[in-house]
């Protein structure tokens, strides 16, 4: 089942993720983790109010994805990739370590649902806060956001291909 979004990301998303899957190693991303690779990987993660930012360098074919739960680390607790500002910075750092060039990077973003119907009119729900942090940070880093499937009211299963940036989304 493909999410009938009004912001289509790519034609690749309207087909099953099985295309080319046998050529890519599979990985699963848990909340608070991030994954980067210079090899071809199909990375799966499931998002509710959480957001995943996917970055890839189409020249070097290096890519990565994070999955963060909370918008901004405020100084309380541990500065972990559970927080959007940490997760995006860490993702950029790790991609650079593998040899990606920041000026080549492209971005896609997923998740940030408001999973309760009663609160969908609120603009400050957790999912929306996560989306805004991601947008602001990508803009500040001058990384083009070339695709997104965010907001709404349902969870999402996302499969992201690190080598070419293609992504598949299933609404849950």
């Amino acid at each position, binding site marked *: 089942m493909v999410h009938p979004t009004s912001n289509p990301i790519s034609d690749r998303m309207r087909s099953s993720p099985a295309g080319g899957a046998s050529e890519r190693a599979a990985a699963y991303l*848990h909340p*608070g983790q991030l994954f980067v690779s210079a090899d071809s990987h199909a990375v799966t993660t499931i998002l509710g*109010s959480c957001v995943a930012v996917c970055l890839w360098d189409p020249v070097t074919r290096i890519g990565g994805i994070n999955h963060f739960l909370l918008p901004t680390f405020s100084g309380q607790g541990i500065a972990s990739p559970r927080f959007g500002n940490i997760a995006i910075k860490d993702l950029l750092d790790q991609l650079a370590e593998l040899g990606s060039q920041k000026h080549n990077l492209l971005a896609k973003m997923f998740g940030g649902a408001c999973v309760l119907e009663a609160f969908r009119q609120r603009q400050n729900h957790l999912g929306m806060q996560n989306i805004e942090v991601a947008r602001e940070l990508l803009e500040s880093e001058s990384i083009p956001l070339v695709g997104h499937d965010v907001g709404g009211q349902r969870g999402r299963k996302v499969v992201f291909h690190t080598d070419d940036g293609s992504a598949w989304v299933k609404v849950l």
Partner: protein
Amino acid sequence: MAARKILLVDDSETILQMEQMILAKEPYELLVARDGAEGVARALEDNPDLILMDVVMPRMGGFEALRQLRGNQRTSTVPVVMVTTKAEADSIETGYASGCNDYIVKPIDSIELIAKLRDLLGD
């Protein structure tokens, strides 16, 4: 205004104690059930504002309990957060299919849990 009720459903005393410890300073009334069947019964009796539901439990697991809650008009819209483990990654889709609103992975992070609950309760 009466305190919001959070129903904690888990067969592990350790997890229940951890959840109660994390939420001790929050303005919630905490209720406890130790398996899915008890969770459904307490939800119908006490009308909680949110349910934290473990997945693997004796007598009745979290997914079956969730399906029963969603099938009852009185509990069809109560927010339910599944409490899963990393080993249960495949089950998260089942959770959403059964009607959960969100999930959290053990070991439970206190900041994450409180943020999710506040968000789901509109605080």
